[in-house]
């Protein structure tokens, strides 16, 4: 009996002393979310009496890998009659700086954004659906190794380290817009890439830039030529940019149709004549909009 107790005690001691944390160095560019937001519990409440203060608190978290909180990144509240619910700025609230996940930090930044409003005295109930809209600039960095074969159709039999093949980018890159596939087409002296891009975050994507970001809120109006565009910031092979070869681009942007887009790029400066593996890196930049709803009922206080 004493022996058993001793074994258990020792096992307990060992367990506590063995909790060595491993350094987070695994692949961090995964996931399909950018900014995640939710209403704090009971803020806003589902029911309140007219004349009372309406407090709305949004808990926000950067679940992607790019930082959020730059100039123009804002959260707006809308959906209510401003003559009944007043005191909420139509220009929204600045999103505080939220760092993204990185190789060494496995959780993105977390913060809250608060709104306070006054409700007018009512004689009838006013059911309202409050819409929180977050507008922010985001970036996707997708990188994967591709096979570059400068002479794929050579007649001579020789040993190759790789054969050019399509590269899938499953699971996202820690951003709401993903590079889903790079089709590789090797020809003598030139490798063509057909890069597939998709909006996987459940929100709306629009052209990057302060001008469009300002129009993203409920008071603004993004034009048809501004929504569903993603800026192709860079495409590089072995660190050499091939962005200049990419087609078709509309002022440097890829057009998405039904949330999906395509761009064709060429790499025509292979090293030597033997096939080799090299990283293909795609950088996308865009504005993104997420929204969230909460039903609130304002009851008459008279």
């Amino acid at each position, binding site marked *: 009996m004493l022996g058993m107790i001793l074994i258990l005690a020792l096992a307990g001691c060992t367990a506590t002393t063995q909790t060595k944390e491993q350094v987070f160095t695994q692949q961090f560019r995964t996931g399909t979310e950018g900014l995640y937001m939710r209403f704090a519990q009971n803020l806003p409440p589902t029911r309140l009496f007219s004349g009372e203060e309406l407090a709305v608190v949004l808990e926000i978290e950067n679940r992607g890998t790019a930082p959020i909180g730059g100039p123009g990144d804002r959260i707006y509240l*809308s959906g209510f009659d401003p*003559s009944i619910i007043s005191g909420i700025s139509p220009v929204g609230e600045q999103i505080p700086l939220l760092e993204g996940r990185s190789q060494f930090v496995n959780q993105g930044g977390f913060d809250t954004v608060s709104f306070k409003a006054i409700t007018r005295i009512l004689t009838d109930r006013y*059911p309202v659906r409050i819409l929180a809209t977050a507008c922010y600039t985001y970036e996707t960095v997708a990188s994967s190794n591709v096979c570059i074969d400068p002479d794929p159709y050579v007649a001579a039999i020789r040993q190759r380290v790789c054969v050019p093949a399509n590269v899938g980018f499953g699971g996202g890159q820690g951003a709401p817009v993903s590079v889903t596939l790079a089709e590789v087409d090797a020809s003598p002296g030139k490798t063509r890439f057909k890069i597939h891009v998709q909006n996987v975050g459940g929100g709306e994507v629009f052209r990057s830039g302060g001008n469009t970001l300002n129009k993203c809120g409920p008071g603004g109006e993004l034009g048809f030529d501004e929504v569903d565009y993603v800026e192709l910031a860079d495409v590089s092979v072995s660190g050499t940019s091939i962005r200049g070869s990419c087609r078709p681009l509309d002022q440097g942007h890829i057009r998405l149709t039904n949330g999906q887009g395509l761009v064709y790029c060429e790499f025509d400066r292979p090293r030597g004549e033997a096939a080799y593996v090299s990283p293909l890196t795609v950088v996308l930049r865009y504005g993104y909009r997420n*929204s969230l709803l909460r039903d609130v009922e304002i009851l008459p206080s008279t």
Partner: protein
Amino acid sequence: MKKTIALLVLLVLVSGCQTGLFQRKDTMQLPEVNIGTQGVEPLFIQGTPPREVFEGSAFTMMVNLANLGTRDVDDGIYSLSYEQQYLYIAGQKNQGRFVVRGKSIFNPQGEERLLNFAFTTKSLGPQLQGYPVTITFNACYPYVTNAPLIVCIDTDVTGKKPGKVCTPQPQTFPRGQGAPVAVMSVETKILPHEMPNRARPEFVITIKNLGSGQVMASQLYREACSGRPLGEDAWNVVGVSATLSDSVLTCAPETIKMKQQGDTRIVCTQPEGIETRLGTYTAPLTVTLDYGYISSITTQVNIVKQ
């Protein structure tokens, strides 16, 4: 016995520890008073007047006036009509005033008033063995339908923006708004405005008399109970006004003659429009219908010879 007491004590302690174990979780619901299609409804109290009375005798007729709508009636008029050759009311007039408060969240049933009439039958004369007399009770009163509705204002006329809180669509209100004349439906249209960055809301409002009485111009309700003919133009006339949020809408026509059959439509607009920067939101539209109303009930008393 000791065991039972101990168990009871334990139960009380446990229920005290666990919050909400015996608590009601549902929140109190306020009574829905803004529904219904009735106003002031007169009703003969059962057994009054009696079916048969002897000539030269007295009988009592009691009428209950219940305000089943949401509007207070502060200056209602009632009148009795009957063949004065066979009946008379001793010490009372055929007309009078009444006050009955409407339904509210504090009095969801509405107020009732009991009116008592003491009739005396006259002699039938030698020719008649019996005679059926018809007594009609009329309640005439001004009434207002106040329809607080929630409509969707979508200033994005071209439909460019996704993720809206609501979409303007026709709404129907078959249960009424606690008044005999009801707003049956509202169709919201958001039209382009002549000014940039503005949109013009337009509401097509359908109204109908769902009560059992008759509608008249609000200023003529007293005359309706006087027995004087009002003329065709006085009947079925309703004054219409509406507000959207804080803004008074322009309704055309402001006074409408309701159709005898079917629905009557009114169009209310906000000529100055709404700024498009306000986006899409829900707003209170309050439609107010102003009219006079007459509710009548009839009964028969058989006067027989002694």
